[in-house]
């Protein structure tokens, strides 16, 4: 496979990633959200694999494996289990209505592209145009965290942000050094577990995972 | 040792003031009686009164403190000091630099503070009232007096009374509008400070109106005599200060002993006129209500300040 084809493939996957980010932003149902998140992880893994294969950066395969393991299998599974155990199957509520969120999201994408354009010029990797997309998906996940009212979607937003970051790492630099990749993965893993513990605690205390219950600590 | 004649003269002059002071009071009383169509008492009546008082046994409240006993003497001492400083007949007073006009005001203040303290010593209602009113008059009269004196001091460039008088008396004649303001202010202060109408009435013991008399209610006999005498000296001193500042002509220069008789005559004439004037004022004016006294005195203060400003305005 020539450089241009793999580059086109990566670009395609990048677009897919962005699309998924938008889909998550607009998604009302929590189970679909988890599924979308898993898809995003899969897209990330595939694109990393393509980069690894086409550039011969073998350590990226570790990254691929980690992504697959963590983000496509383990975390969605854990989240599913949690939702089963906590009976939180209801729809996702948002603070701002979804069309408005989408509009803001489009604005963000344009902003991220504008920001990334001069940097992309400098990159000599085959995936240089994807840096803007990575940044956009980070910002979109951020937006998602802001507008969601429940704890679980917020966490999914956070994890999606990590996906965006990983994508940035692979696309812009062919991946971070291995030790860092491993460390980050470990952090994500531990973090997910701690989130899980938290869901139980919160549920126990407030009988709900609605974070509106957690607005007591403030200045009056 | 060149000062010896001067020192001797200064002591003599102060003795003269001390001895002559009751006579001035007698003269003022006589004039007033005439003006009020009364038959006048003897001009020497104040002396008789003093002698009578000195002979009596003193009656003192049981709870009087040493301060009470001391005060009449302190008052007398202060007034004597004032009498020694003011150039009455001549300006050759070697000790006069010991206390300039500011210190002179200080002497009067010292006397006032002591008399007010003594008034409060026994702890009577009138005593406290007297002390309060005395200090009320004092705090307004004192700055007015200082400002008056400052006006003169600015003209002569000195705060020494002798120097001021020499400058005013022996310089070429000039009209100082600022001094006119000062003179009016000084007259008002004089009336207030010496417990005269319209501020106070030395001849009555009306409880609602008396000021100075209330402070000496508890004194009797020799103590009262000393206080009365000190008051007489104070009146004399004030009058001579006024004369020295505003009508200094005729006063003897330093070392010019020949001019003394003339100076003496001039002083006598001025005092006779001033005493009569005082009596006239006391007859013509009515006593003010107590709370108009601050107004009266602040007018004096403002006039004095105005005088001082006039001095600077006309100078530029």
């Amino acid at each position, binding site marked *: 496979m020539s450089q241009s084809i793999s580059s086109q493939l990566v670009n395609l996957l990048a677009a897919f990633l962005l699309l998924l980010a938008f889909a998550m932003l607009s998604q009302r149902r929590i189970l679909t959200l988890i599924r979308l998140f898993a898809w995003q992880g899969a897209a990330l893994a595939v694109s990393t694999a393509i980069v690894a294969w086409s550039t011969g950066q073998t350590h990226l395969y570790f990254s691929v494996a980690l992504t697959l393991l963590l983000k496509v299998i383990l975390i969605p599974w854990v989240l599913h289990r949690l939702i089963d155990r906590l009976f939180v199957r209801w729809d996702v509520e948002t603070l701002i209505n979804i069309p408005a969120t989408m509009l803001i999201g489009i604005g963000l994408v344009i902003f991220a592209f504008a920001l990334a354009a001069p940097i992309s010029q400098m990159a000599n990797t085959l995936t240089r145009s994807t840096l803007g997309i990575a940044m956009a998906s980070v910002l979109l996940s*951020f937006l998602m965290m802001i507008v969601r009212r429940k704890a679980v979607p917020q966490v999914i937003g956070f994890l999606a942000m990590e996906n965006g*970051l990983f994508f940035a790492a692979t696309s812009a630099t062919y991946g*971070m050094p291995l030790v860092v990749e491993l*460390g980050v993965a470990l*952090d994500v893993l531990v973090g997910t577990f701690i989130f899980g513990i938290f869901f139980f605690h*919160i549920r126990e*205390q407030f009988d709900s995972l609605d974070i509106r219950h957690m607005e*007591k600590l403030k*200045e009056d | 040792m060149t000062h010896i004649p001067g020192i001797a003269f200064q002591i003599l002059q102060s003795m003269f003031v001390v001895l002559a002071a009751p006579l001035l009071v007698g003269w003022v009383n006589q004039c007033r009686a005439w003006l009020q169509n009364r038959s006048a008492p003897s001009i020497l009546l104040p002396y008789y009164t003093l002698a009578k008082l000195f002979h009596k046994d003193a009656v003192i409240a049981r709870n009087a403190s040493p301060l009470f006993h001391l005060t009449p003497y302190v008052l007398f001492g202060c007034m004597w000091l004032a009498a020694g400083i003011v150039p009455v007949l001549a300006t050759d007073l070697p000790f006069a630099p010991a206390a300039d006009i500011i210190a002179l005001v200080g002497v009067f203040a010292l006397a006032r503070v002591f008399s007010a303290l003594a008034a409060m010593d026994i702890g009577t209602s009138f005593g406290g009232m007297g002390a309060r009113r005395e200090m009320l008059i004092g705090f307004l009269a004192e700055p007015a007096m200082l400002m008056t004196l400052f006006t003169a001091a600015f003209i002569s460039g000195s705060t020494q009374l002798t120097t001021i008088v020499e400058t005013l008396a022996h310089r070429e004649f000039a009209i100082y509008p600022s001094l006119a303001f000062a003179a009016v202010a000084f007259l008002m202060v004089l009336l207030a400070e010496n417990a005269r109408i319209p501020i106070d009435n030395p001849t009555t013991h009306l409880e609602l109106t008396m000021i100075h008399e209330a402070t000496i209610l508890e004194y009797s006999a020799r103590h009262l005599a000393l206080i009365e005498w000190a008051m007489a000296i104070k009146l004399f001193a004030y009058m001579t200060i006024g004369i020295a500042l505003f009508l200094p002509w005729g006063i003897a220069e330093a070392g010019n002993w020949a001019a003394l008789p003339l100076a003496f005559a001039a002083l006598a004439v001025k005092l006779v006129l001033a005493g009569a004037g005082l009596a006239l004022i006391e007859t013509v004016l009515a006593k003010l209500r107590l709370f108009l006294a601050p107004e009266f005195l602040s007018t004096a203060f403002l006039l004095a300040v105005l005088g001082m400003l006039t001095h600077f305005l006309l100078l530029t």
Partner: protein
Amino acid sequence: MEIALVLGVPLFGGLLLALVGHKRWAPELNALMSLVSLAAAALLTVRVIADGPMTAMEEQFFVDPFNVFLVALTALVAFTTALFSRPYMRIEQHHGRVNTARLRLYHSMYQLFTFMMLLCLLSNNVGVLWVAMEGATLTTVLLVSLYRTPASLEAAWKYFILCSVGIAQALFGTILLYFAAEKVLGPGGTSLLWTHLYEVRYQLEPTVLSLAFVFLLVGFGTKVGLVPLHNWLPDAHAEGPTPISAVLSGLLLNVALYAVVRSKVLVDGALGRNFSGGLMMGFGLLSVVVAAFFLSRQKDIKRMFAYSSVEHMGIMTFAFGMGGPVAAFAGLLHMTVHSLTKSAIFFTVGHASQKTGTQNMADIRGLIEQSPAIGWGLALGSIAILGMPPFGVFTSEFMVLTTAMHEHPWATPFLLIALGVAFAAIFGKVQPMVFGETTAHRLPHPPALIPVFVHLGIVLMLGLYIPPYLVSWYRQAAALIG
């Protein structure tokens, strides 16, 4: 070797305590492990003083004047806090607020947190620094919610979410940094090593670095507690156990600021102008002013001192932002004195609220009467933190202010107004707690107050006299980052 010891001891301690942390003697073991790390840190310090900067383990770790003093400080505060936590947690257990299982978690996490802090400081790899920083959040987040009260859960949740999101931005910044470094150093492990980055900092791509710095500043700045990213800080400080508040304020914020300053050095090198300084000064000033006005509204004692930490981090950020040998020196000194003073304050505050059974300041009264040591400790600590001489906080504030006055005179009125408002707020609340009729009771275990006075003693000394070796140390560090 020393580095391995410094990092190994708390890691081992954390694992060990995970097994035996529920035992009766666990608090002592915890303190002992901290003591051993302190000794190791001291060894390392001696070594660095003797031999100068060094790297270890294929350059993955390094020590230079900047981080070695923070390592020593971190180890010291970790040790004294462990000493304090010994009676504190026993009393908490006595009051039934924690059980043995949670104590095990607590002790284990305490050591792991220390490990993460030291790893942040010693790691030469900017990526590992990020990992350790996130690790610090992960180790403390369950401690913040240790009491499992609704408020503590809420605080921990906010802490977790805000810090994780923040730190994710920092990761993006790190990626961008790597992206730039790769151009110069080539792909592979060395491109994220600080020592290498430092050498090539003038060749890094300025556009990328400025973008990276924004992400790094927002990311690590969240952990520093810069306004308006600070919102997790008061909640987490107020609701967690007091030893954790002490180490959060005394260590975590410093380490996060350390990361920001490290980034600043690279960005300044690349940009050749004081772009990062301006941003840091702006954030610093905003933090100082906003935190000062927050102070006067506080009712909870730990929350108030948390805002005071925000204020002081603002001062430090401002100082580092100004740059130059004096300001950087002042910033380093302020890091030292602030972490010592603030942790000392939290020690006294912890015991004070145990004595009175509340964190509500209106209900804490007359400490000096019932236990003079706590009362005086709180009074002197507050006075020190408010920047009154002869305590060392004044020394650094003096240097910051005087430098600001001739470099950025516009900033000084803001700083001074904030200092005045902070003084009125904190002192007005501390005074009635210290003085007056008492509401305090006796404690079941004797409180640990030696750490308080050791800290305050050092701070007092730094106000009057800075030892020459410390000066040369700070100077070298300041030269490195100025």
